[in-house]
Every structure is written in structure tokens, then in C-alpha cells.
């Protein structure tokens, strides 16, 4: 008769092992989470219905205010009482035959405001702004920008860095440099903040 010595047998508990860290799953999932987060959380400056690269046109009526869902919108407004465009970077805005037209744009924008009563703008770096056949033109631009006023009663430009302003047939051409220095004349109806 076989006798089993129970005390001699090793007593081993078999607790439920906690599931180990599934490193493969984590390695797969976390980069996707981070990448998705970066893509989805990309900021959008504008808040309007115009999409990047889309030509958005508004005309007639009383108010035409165009937004942009981020950057790169091509916005046009004409034949209305009030026009305006808000956009991120790399946008273009054309505005004509309205009472007042304003632009609020980031960097690398191209704005043309002509044949209006007044034009106003906040424009970022490397802005190219043209104002013509307008009674009042008021523009604040970022560094490395170019502003052209022609056939304007009053052209007021505030430069937040280096800029060049050309005034052609302008009643009053006022250029203010952000650092407090006086704008220098570059000849040919052009003045500049910073080097010519």
C-alpha cells in the first residue's frame, strides 16, 4: 500500500497571475493615440465656412463676413455695404466696391482692397497689402511686409518690424515703426521701417 507523505510534498499556491503588461498592444496603441491626438488637436485660427484652397466669394446685401477653417483660403467680397475676412496663414483676400472692408490675417497673406470707402487690416509677417481708390486706409502689418497705397486720401500704416510702404497720390501717408524709430525714405515714394 503506497503511502503518500503529504507533508513531504511541496505546497504551492496557484494564485491567479495578474495579466502581464501587454507590451505589444501598448506599443501599438500608444503611438496611434499620440499621433491621432496631434492630428486632431491641430489648431484652427479661423472660424468660418471657407475651407483651405477654396475660393469663397460673397457679394450683394448688407454684410459679407467671410471666415476660414484654418489657413490657405481665397476670399473675395464685393458690392456690399460691409465686408470682412478672417483667416489664418497663407490667405488671399480681395475686396472692392463696398463701404468698408477689413481683413484679419496671419502670416504670408496677400490682400487687395480697392474702390472702397475705407480699408482696415491686421496682417502678419510677409504681408502684401494693396490699397487703392480708397478714402481711408489703415493697416497693421508684421515683419517683412509690403504695403502699397495709391489714390488714397489717408494711408496709415503701423509696422511691427521691417516693412516697406509705397504711397502714390496719397493725401496723407503716415508710417509708424513699432520700435519707435522714424520711417526712412527710400526714394520713389517709398518709406521703410528698417532697411530699404
Amino acid at each position, binding site marked *: 500500500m503506497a503511502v503518500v507523505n503529504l507533508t513531504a510534498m511541496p505546497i504551492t499556491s496557484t494564485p491567479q497571475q495578474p495579466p*502581464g503588461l501587454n507590451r505589444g498592444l*501598448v506599443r501599438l496603441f500608444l503611438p496611434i493615440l499620440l499621433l491621432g491626438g496631434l492630428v486632431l488637436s491641430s489648431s484652427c485660427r479661423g472660424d468660418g*465656412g471657407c475651407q483651405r484652397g477654396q475660393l469663397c466669394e460673397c457679394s450683394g446685401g448688407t454684410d459679407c463676413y467671410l471666415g476660414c477653417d484654418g489657413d490657405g483660403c481665397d476670399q473675395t467680397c464685393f458690392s456690399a455695404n460691409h465686408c470682412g475676412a478672417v483667416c489664418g496663414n497663407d490667405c488671399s483676400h480681395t475686396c472692392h466696391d463696398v463701404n468698408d472692408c477689413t481683413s484679419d490675417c496671419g502670416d504670408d497673406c496677400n490682400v487687395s482692397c480697392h474702390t472702397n470707402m475705407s480699408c482696415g487690416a*491686421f496682417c502678419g509677417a510677409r504681408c502684401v497689402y494693396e490699397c487703392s481708390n480708397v478714402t481711408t486706409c*489703415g493697416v*497693421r502689418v508684421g515683419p517683412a511686409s509690403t504695403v502699397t497705397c495709391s489714390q488714397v486720401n*489717408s494711408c496709415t500704416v503701423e509696422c511691427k518690424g521691417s516693412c516697406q510702404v509705397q504711397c502714390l497720390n496719397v493725401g496723407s501717408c503716415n508710417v509708424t515703426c513699432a520700435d519707435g524709430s522714424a520711417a526712412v525714405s527710400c526714394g520713389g515714394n517709398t518709406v521703410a521701417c528698417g532697411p530699404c
Partner: protein
Amino acid sequence: MLIRRILGHHGPRLPAGLTHTVEGVLVGRGARRAAVGVALALVGLAAASPVGAQTVPRRFEDQPAYGLELEPHLVAGIADPPGPGTAQGAGVGVRGSFVVSRDGFINEVNDSIAIGFGLDALHYRGQNGSLYGRCVRRQPGPGGTSVCTEVDVPGGPRNYLFIPAVMQWNFWLRPQWSAFVEPGLAVFLTNRGLGAAPSLSVGGRMQISDTFSLVFRLGWPTTTLGVSVRL
């Protein structure tokens, strides 16, 4: 009565206060869709926790012991949000859930209660929006001009910041699986101002280690997928 009808007379008996809470958050926009969702969830939970079932842990000792569950996640808005936004949205967020009781509302079920607070940032693309809208913010510009700096386009894209505050009712079904229902309130901030709306979610988590879980949450106004860390 809605919850009683959903569960039927053989389902788990819920406290009257909770029943009213769940029913309360169903009132409002998207209520019918939310009601169907919570009905399915509760029916599923009721079916998964009958008296006498051997697969359901009954004691809170079987629950993972933690005080705070921290959960970064991707967020999707799969239906119109409350407020001025439209269509679907996506973004990122984080949720922190504090365990307030490891013994939930139903004695026969291994359930627990947590209170959750979060922050979710979403961008809704909008639909059928006009290309132009109205100017809602102006700033004085040079030369006496007044420059429009913000345009509000009806139906256009919008950014949302949600701050949800929820009661998380957890059901610890298996060692690696758990489910939860989250009725609560979501405060939201858009460029049009502040608002609040009821929120309701059902979700589940798959434990991938002692500390980490994958968490999925289906609900309104937001649906999430993330990784949670139990602390």
C-alpha cells in the same frame, strides 16, 4: 418608470433616486438615441448579472483596488453637439475618475461608484454652413478703422471645450473586463460662450496589465477611446 420599463420586472431593482437621475439626463436633445443606448446597456448588464450566475464576482474584494483612474483619450463627437456646433467632431481629452464607493447600488452585483471629471477639446467641422456670416468681434485698427477679428458662420466649423462631470457606475464582470454607465453633466465652451448639457455614456474597459486598461466610451456628447492608468 422608464428604467423600470427598460429592465422589466425581472431585472435588477434600482434605487428610486438613481432611476430618476438616469431618466433626468435622458430629457433633452438626443434623448431618444441616448435612451436606446442606455436601455441596451442596462439590459445587457441585467442579463450579465442574474442572481446565481457563477461568472460574476460578487464581492468588491474582487475589484482592482485603486483610488483614481486617469485616462487620456481620443474623443469623437458622433452626433450634433449641444450649442451652436453641428455634425461630427474629433479631438483629445483626459478623464479622472475618483472611486467613492467600492460597493455600488446593487447588492447582488460586483459594482462600484466613481465620480469623474474631464476636459475634452473637439473640433466640429460643421455642415451645410453658409460661406459667410456675421462679425462677432472687432478691434480698433490704424487710421480710425475697426477691424473684424472674428466671424461667426451658421453651421460652420467650431471648436469646443467640454468639461464633463459624471457619476461612473462600474460593473466588474470578469477579471479583465468591466463595464460602466456614466450619467452626468457636460459644461461646454465655444466661441459663442458657455453652456451646459446632460451627458450619458456607456463603456467598457479591458485590463491589459495591473495598472493599464483600454477604455471605450460610447455616448453623447462625446465618445472616447483611451488608455487608463489606475493609481
